[in-house]
């Protein structure tokens, strides 16, 4: 597929759902979305406004509590919703009721059959309840678990050393181990995910200096040494192409592009592995857009960042991302490498989206035919329910059996 095939999976999103209450109804902002992001990869998420791409990003970083589904980061579950388990329990209870009604009361085996069914249901329900407990625990205590894991790893690593060392060295080794454990206790998993926000004006506090804004994360995580803070802030400013003297200024003194750089510096100071960039360039001027994209590209190479890039400007997403997921009304409808997606778009919504990209070419633009996508007339999901299916290696589409064949045929042509 591509160069990231063998890389470690950094983020794994599994059947993620995020529903919002709207009176009595529910808004399904994100509905059953699954994807992986490999280490070092840029994953683009596109779709029209209101399709749930930003909500997906915010749920991953736990700004919302997921309704159901899981997100794994570095193998540790950080987001877990419980709705699906609760629904399972309800379904099982209904099933049990129906089955019991079916039984004939005059049947001699009635009692035993009933007991069997009840036990079966109870076992299942207990399992689900256990899952709920686990999910709630994971969702709440992922940082704690992560630290405990780290400590356990360190202990494991040092145990043979301590055992084999003689009396003299033993103290030193234990000291070393304790220091590492002390450091490990400060680690937080969730700080390794950071976010760059869309609007560089609204996302910076106008009453804080740039230094305060950038250092805020550090201070919250217990850094008290001013010298260390300053040093790190200057390093970050340098990294994003600003000058150290900018640290004492306020956000309003900067242009849009510079403000976005401050936002990036703030996201980078805690040394994250994974960055969620929520439309970082759509509020910027053309010439500044190119500067910020170039900066993100450089940072990605030098720091080895993994990025979830949310945008609606498809040419930029194409340029910047390795793989792209297309979302439509809360569902992921197509997922493929960026080359593949633009070369062989299969889902009608993707086609419509691609046909809407404006290019700086008058002749092309004046003859461009926009494909209109109408979900209701395009698909018939009344009988055959759709799901995410792999049409070609690495190319997933949300479709049902009938469509799967159609798409496969299309791809062969």
């Amino acid at each position, binding site marked *: 597929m591509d160069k990231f095939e063998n890389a470690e999976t950094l983020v794994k999103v599994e059947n993620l759902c995020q529903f919002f209450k709207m009176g009595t109804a529910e808004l399904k902002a994100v509905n059953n979305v699954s994807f992986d992001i490999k280490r070092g990869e840029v994953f683009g998420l596109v779709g*029209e*406004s209101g399709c749930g791409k930003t909500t997906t990003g915010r749920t991953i970083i736990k700004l919302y509590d997921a309704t159901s589904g899981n997100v794994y980061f570095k193998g540790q579950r950080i987001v877990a919703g419980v709705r699906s388990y609760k629904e399972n329990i309800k379904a099982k209870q209904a099933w049990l009721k129906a089955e019991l009604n079916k039984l004939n009361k005059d049947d001699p085996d009635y009692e035993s059959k009933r007991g069997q069914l009840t036990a079966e249901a109870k076992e299942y329900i207990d399992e689900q309840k256990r899952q709920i407990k686990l999910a709630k625990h994971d969702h709440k205590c992922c940082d704690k678990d992560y630290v405990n894991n780290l400590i356990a790893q360190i202990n494991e690593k040092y145990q043979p050393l301590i055992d084999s060392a003689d009396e003299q060295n033993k103290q030193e080794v234990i000291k070393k181990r304790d220091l590492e454990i002390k450091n490990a206790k400060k680690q937080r998993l969730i700080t390794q995910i950071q976010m760059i926000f869309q609007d560089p004006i609204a996302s910076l506090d106008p009453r804080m200096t740039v230094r305060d804004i950038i250092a805020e994360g550090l201070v919250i995580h217990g850094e008290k040494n001013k010298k260390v803070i300053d040093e790190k802030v200057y390093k970050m400013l340098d990294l994003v192409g600003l000058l150290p003297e900018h640290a004492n200024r306020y956000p309003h003194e900067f242009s849009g592009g510079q403000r976005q750089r401050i936002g990036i510096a703030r996201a980078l100071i805690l040394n994250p592995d994974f960055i969620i960039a929520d439309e970082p360039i759509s509020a910027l001027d053309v*010439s500044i857009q*190119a500067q910020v994209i170039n900066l993100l590209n450089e940072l990605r190479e030098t720091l080895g960042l993994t990025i979830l890039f949310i945008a609606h400007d498809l040419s930029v997403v194409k*340029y910047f991302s390795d793989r792209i997921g297309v979302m439509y009304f809360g569902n992921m409808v197509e997922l493929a490498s960026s080359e593949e997606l633009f070369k062989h778009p299969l889902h009608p919504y993707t086609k419509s989206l691609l046909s809407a990209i*404006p290019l700086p070419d*008058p002749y092309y633009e004046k003859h461009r035919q926009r494909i209109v996508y109408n979900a209701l007339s395009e698909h018939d999901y009344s009988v055959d329910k759709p799901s995410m299916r792999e049409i070609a290696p690495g190319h997933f589409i949300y479709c049902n059996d009938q469509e799967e064949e159609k798409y496969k045929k299309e791809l062969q042509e």
Partner: protein
Amino acid sequence: MKELKLSVNNLKISFRTDDGTVQAVRGINFDLYKGETLALVGESGSGKSVTNRAIMGILAANAIKESGEIIYDGQDLMKLEEEDFHKLRGDKIAMIFQDPMSSLNPIMRVGKQMTEATLIKGKVSQKQSKEIFNKTLALLNKRMDEARGNEQENKAYCKMFDDFEYKHLELEYSYNKAREALENAIGDIKDVLFRIEKRAFDNVRRDLAEILKETAHTIERYVVYARADELKGLLAELKTLSRITLVEKAGGAARFLLNKKQKKDNAQVAEWDQITKKLEQVLDILNEADGYVKPNFFAMGYYAKFAKEPLPQMEIEELNKFLRNYLDEKFMLYFISIAKEGVLYSNKLSIEAKKQAIQLIDEKLPFFDGDSPPKTSTTELCKELISAVEKCIDKLDVIKDNVLYTFSSSLKTSVNRYFEAIIHNVQEEKRFERQTAKYNSLVKRGKTPDYTVAEKDLVDLKVAKQDIVNCILRVKQKMQKDIENNDSIDFDAKVVSLIDFFKEKASAVVFKVTKAIAKNRALKLLEEVGIPEPRKRFRQYPFEFSGGMRQRIVIAIALSANPDILICDEPTTALDVTIQSQILELINKVKRERNLTVIFITHDLGVVANMADRVAVMYAGKIVEIGTAEDVFYNPKHPYTWALLSSMPDLDTKEKLEAIPGTPPNMIYPPKGDAFAERNKYALKIDFEEEPPMFKVSDTHYAATWLLHPSAPKVDPPKQVLDRITKMKKMQEEMLNG
């Protein structure tokens, strides 16, 4: 020839701020022709929006209009009073703003916001039109008298024209009312059908009953044609059908309480299907009625006023023919022939006046050769010239001539500027002398002053005087051209257009804009801009709309007064691609249908390529490159255009993006020479010293860069741009070959 709509000449605007004067626009020129789209491209702060605010007359309070003129419809918008601007703004020049949320009033229903302008403008235009109509007709009468004598006949004919003009409009007015009722009925039925289709049954039954009543009423009152009986039958059936459902509803409600799930059972759906079918039939008939040919009311008005006989019973097309012939025979042909005499005479007068004016100018022009013309005699001379030129204006010509109409104001301005400059120069000399004396005395006393005397800031009087001369020469040239072209004027067409002009003005008088009409118009517009269920949407608040829908509302409001020029200030920047392309398609469609003139501001080159006929690239308050879209995209000449083109990725970009280094210059201290030189890697030495003039690339394509100077080194555009252009050419060929 293309009709010139708007011309901007040497526009300079700055803003007073705490830090100093920001020079936002530094002398830009462009012309705008009817039916074309001009795109202004550039970074934020390049002066695109300021230019357009100046055209709209909504500059901020700290703005200084330094110089320049914006000529529209014979008026200079830069010198227009606020009161007069009210008549133009929204009515003739409308604007779509960038942010649909902040340009709508959050506490007013959308419907009210849409009809507001129509209602206010209706009242204003009624008065104005009446005045213009009467004045022009009186003038025509006068000219006819002068041309051919026989005053009684002239007067009688003009009176007849006046009378039946109004009669026909009354007839047309009632017809239009009927049409509106018909369209209303169609819209209502479409609405109900939409709701039935979407299974949104809330209140459908009640609405349906109401609509049926109204439709029946409409048909009885206004629409008379062959299929009326059939339609009545259908309506009766529908009535009974809907009554059944109403009765069922009462039963259904009880059932509903007992069992929620039976709410939409199949029987009911079938019934709805039946209603849908019937409604569609009704709709077909109504649509057919909608497609009928419009009677010729102009002719019918004459017949009704003077024939004193009932209308003959005929098919509408035949009737039209008959009425037309009747009108032509009895009145129109003769009226046209005598009106033509009047128009010819008026033209002759104006040509003669022009000849005299040219003579006068030739005589008086040497007056400005002298060193310093005295003020009093100059003003007198100007008055003489202005009155001479004003005589040249042919008031019976429907198309207003910009140069002649603005001569008075522009001449006065340039003369004023000249005399102000003289006073200013004297004061400046005095100041300089005084300060130098002080400085020298300080030096004499052995002190070293810590300042230097500021240089003399003198206005070049020769240039100022030349401005006056140019102003006069321009009008002279224009008049000479008019005299030369006079033989080729088609006077028949001119008379016809004059009569059309009368019709238009009269219709503005008769058609009172009532609330109902305004509402209907707004609903039609909502449909036109692609908002489903306009009737329901009409009563909603802006926050109930999504971003794209909101922008459509803003567009509909801009179009509601039927403007001449539409200014779009980044209308799609806040929207995503699919909505953006819908909105662009919409603007293009509306533009085609109404032959609108559009100024489109954006920084997205893809959007420009889609929309623009011509493109003006702006940087630091100046137009650096202007040409047709093909010129600018396939043959860009200015380094800034190159930089813009190469800084955005397209679908095939792999290599590092070529970002434009640095930021736009601070316009409080605009850089010397070419403003882009600082960020330009192709900058020549001269770019830092002297501002480049506009070099001509082709007849339509101009660019302001020293690279086009014959002695400049030859520089090719960056590789990305060249690659892209070759790719585009290839794609074009592919598309052409299928």
